[in-house]
C-alpha cells in the first residue's frame, strides 16, 4: 500500500525541487532566459519522472502503482504547463503589455496605442513566420507561404479545436 504513495511523493518532491532550484539558482542564469531553454528544462524534469514512474511500474507491477505514476505525471504536467504559461505571458504577452502601457499612461487613446504597438506587432508577425518555418510547419515556394506536411496536421488539430469551442477567426 505504501509503494504507490512513495512514487506519488517522489513526484511531488521533484516538482518542489525543480521550482526551488529555479527560484534560488536558475532564474538569473542567462542561458535560461529564453522560451526554448525553459521549455527544455521542464521536458527534462518530466522525462526523468516518466523514467522513474515506468521503472516503478516494472519493478512493482500492479494497478495501484500505475495510478500513482499517472498521478505524479499529471501533477508535474499541471506544474509545468502553469509555469510555462505564466513565464511566457509575462515575457511576451502583446495584450498584457498593452494593458500595462495604458495603466502607465492614462491619457492614451486608441490611435496612440496603435502607433506605439504597431512596430511590435510587425516584429511579432515576422518572428512567428520564421519560427513556423524553422519548426517545419511552413515553407516558402514560388513567392508564397504554404503549409508543410507537419503544418497540415497542426492546422487540422487547430481547426478541430475551433470547431469544438466554436471560435471564429481571431489573432
Amino acid at each position, binding site marked *: 500500500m505504501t509503494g504507490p504513495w512513495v512514487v506519488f511523493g517522489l513526484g511531488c518532491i521533484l516538482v518542489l525541487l525543480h521550482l526551488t532550484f529555479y527560484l534560488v539558482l536558475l532564474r538569473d542564469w542567462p542561458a535560461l532566459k529564453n522560451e526554448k531553454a525553459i521549455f527544455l528544462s521542464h521536458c527534462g524534469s518530466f522525462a526523468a519522472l516518466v523514467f522513474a514512474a515506468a521503472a516503478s511500474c516494472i519493478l512493482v507491477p500492479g494497478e495501484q502503482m500505475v495510478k*500513482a505514476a499517472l*498521478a505524479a505525471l499529471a501533477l508535474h*504536467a499541471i506544474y509545468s504547463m502553469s509555469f510555462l504559461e505564466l513565464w511566457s505571458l509575462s515575457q511576451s504577452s502583446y495584450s498584457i503589455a*498593452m*494593458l500595462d502601457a495604458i495603466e502607465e499612461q492614462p491619457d492614451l487613446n486608441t490611435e496612440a496605442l496603435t502607433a506605439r504597438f504597431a512596430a511590435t506587432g510587425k516584429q511579432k508577425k515576422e518572428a512567428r513566420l520564421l519560427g513556423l518555418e524553422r519548426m517545419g510547419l511552413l515553407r516558402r515556394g514560388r513567392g508564397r*507561404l*504554404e503549409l508543410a506536411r507537419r503544418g497540415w496536421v497542426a492546422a487540422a488539430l487547430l481547426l478541430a479545436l475551433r470547431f469544438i469551442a*466554436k471560435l471564429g477567426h*481571431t489573432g
Partner: protein
Amino acid sequence: MLGIIACILAHAFLTRLVPGRSAVTLFLVSGTAVGIALTSWAFRTYGPATIEFVAAVLVYAAFCELYLFLFTLTLTSVSANILVRLWDGPKTQSELDGLYENAAMVEARLTRMRAAGMVRTEVGTLQVTQRGKRIVRSYRFLRTLFRHV
C-alpha cells in the same frame, strides 16, 4: 477519460447554447461542473485518502489545463492563426500582412480586453478598470519573479 470527454462535449454544447459568451468562461463553467461530478464519484467509489482518488482528480485537472491552453492558443496566438489561414491555400507575404495588419491586431486585442472588462474608453482615452489593474499588478509581479525586467 469519460470525465474528460464529458467536459469537452459540455463545452461544445455550451458554446452553441450561449453564443457570444467568452469560450474561456464557458469552459470554466463546464469544466468545474464535470470536475465536481467526477470528484464526487471518485470520493464515493474510492474514498478520499486513496491513490485512485488523487489520480482521477489530478489527471482530469491536467487534461483540463491542456485543453484550455490549446483552445486559447487558437484564439490568441498569431502563429496558430497563420497556420489556420493557410489551410485555405498558399498566401503571399503581403496577403498575410493584410490579414494581420498592425492596427487590426491592436484593435482585436482592445476589443477582447473591453469585452473582458479590463479596459474602458472615457472621454476618448483608454482607462484600465479595477480588474485590469489587478492583472497589471500580477503581470509586473511575474516579470520581477521571472527576471524579465
